[in-house]
């Protein structure tokens, strides 16, 4: 897609800092994610995970540093970079008064998705929402709402998917389904950056782990280079002492 600007990394975050009033939330974050990789961003509540995601998405302006998605600088070329980006946030971004397929059709129009009806069909099938298509978003269960949010985020074939706590409020089966959808997306060359406070789940579907603590990335490693069991134990005891 970005043939005019060849880049190796799908997502690159360089020296990003952000302060809320007087409290520094992000301090010099560097993170480069090549295409097709899934990264799990862990950290306790208030570590700055959501802030980092919102800064990457362009919803928050960083105080310093730069972010590029598929080589497009988020601040300089907002429309091109947003086209490459899908996001799942805490809230589903769905209008409760509209039905599932109406919500998707609205999002598809916002992004100018070609052959809209077919693409929506494809996603309804992919997320298992086909039989709920005529239901209003307000009556969906938490798990179904999350699937709708995923369908909405993937509708315009983004290169990078940001997911903020995608497993919150989901039962084991729904979590597994979401993991499967993410896996499929990554296998097709998609890049994922997800946050979670539950490291166990994060390790399940990502190959790379980054830990954010008080606005600083204290660890960024591939899963097979760390001793998963020991790391988990350390992390859990650390999280307990912090909270």
């Amino acid at each position, binding site marked *: 897609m970005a043939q005019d600007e060849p880049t190796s990394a799908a997502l690159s975050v360089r020296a990003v800092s952000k302060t*809320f*009033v*007087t*409290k520094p939330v992000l301090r010099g974050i560097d993170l480069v994610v090549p295409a097709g990789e899934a990264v799990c961003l862990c950290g306790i509540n208030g570590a700055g995970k959501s802030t980092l995601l919102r800064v990457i998405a362009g919803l928050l302006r960083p105080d310093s540093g730069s972010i590029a998605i598929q080589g497009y600088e988020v601040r300089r070329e907002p429309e091109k970079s947003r086209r490459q980006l899908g996001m799942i946030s805490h809230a589903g971004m769905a209008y409760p008064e509209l039905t599932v397929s109406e919500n998707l059709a609205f999002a598809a129009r916002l992004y100018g998705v070609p052959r809209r009806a077919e693409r929506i069909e494809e996603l309804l099938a992919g997320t298992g929402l086909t039989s709920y298509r005529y239901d209003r978003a307000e009556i969906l269960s938490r798990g179904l709402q999350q699937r709708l949010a995923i369908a909405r985020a993937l509708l315009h074939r983004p290169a990078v998917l940001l997911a903020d706590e995608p497993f919150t409020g989901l039962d084991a089966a729904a979590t597994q389904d979401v993991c499967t959808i993410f896996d499929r997306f990554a296998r097709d060359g998609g890049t994922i950056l997800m946050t979670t406070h539950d490291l166990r789940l994060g390790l399940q579907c990502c190959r790379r782990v980054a830990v954010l603590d008080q606005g600083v990335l204290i660890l960024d490693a591939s899963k097979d280079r760390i001793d998963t069991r020991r790391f988990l134990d350390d992390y859990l005891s650390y999280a307990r002492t912090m909270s």
Partner: protein
Amino acid sequence: MRRLLLALAFLLLIASTLIGLTRGQIDPLQRNILYVHVPNSVCALLCFVVVLVTSVGYLATGKQTWDLAATAAAEAGFVFATILNATGMIFSRAEWNVWWTPSPRLVTSAILWFLYAVYLILRVSLPGAQRRAARLCAVFGIVAFLDVPLVYISARFIPDIHRPNFSFDSTWQTAALMLGMAGTILLAAGLIWLRTSLLRDTLKLEQELLR
């Protein structure tokens, strides 16, 4: 420097008052309020220009000082607009026996006061991230300034009541007004300056305490 400015402003205002009460007296008595009223109306408008310039400055640069100066100018402008309306009402009551009536000048002065009042309320109502609040206030400052010329044009749809014809017949009177004008403008500049640095110091102190 700031102290010098404010001291000079007070000296000029005292001189203006003394001359106004002695050699420069206007007949009848109530019209002498013009020595306060006119300089305050000029300053109320000048502060609006400062709010506009600082608001644009803030949106363009994102520097906090601009935002603080805008707040200071709005606060000073609110004071001047309050004095403007209060003295105007006192005069109106003495001259025409009504406190207020919709005449163009009275309407425009009142709207000016409302614009400042709403600006200051907006300032304390906006929560959360300070930069967002500052940006919203800057937007209101700019839009409110666009409103000011419209206010003056719109007032032309109201027929004016008879206005007393002031004509100065002595240089003392002109001198009193000019001194008052200079004094009030210096006072405005001093107040905005003082308040801006006070706001900056307060903010710094808060940051120190939070650290």
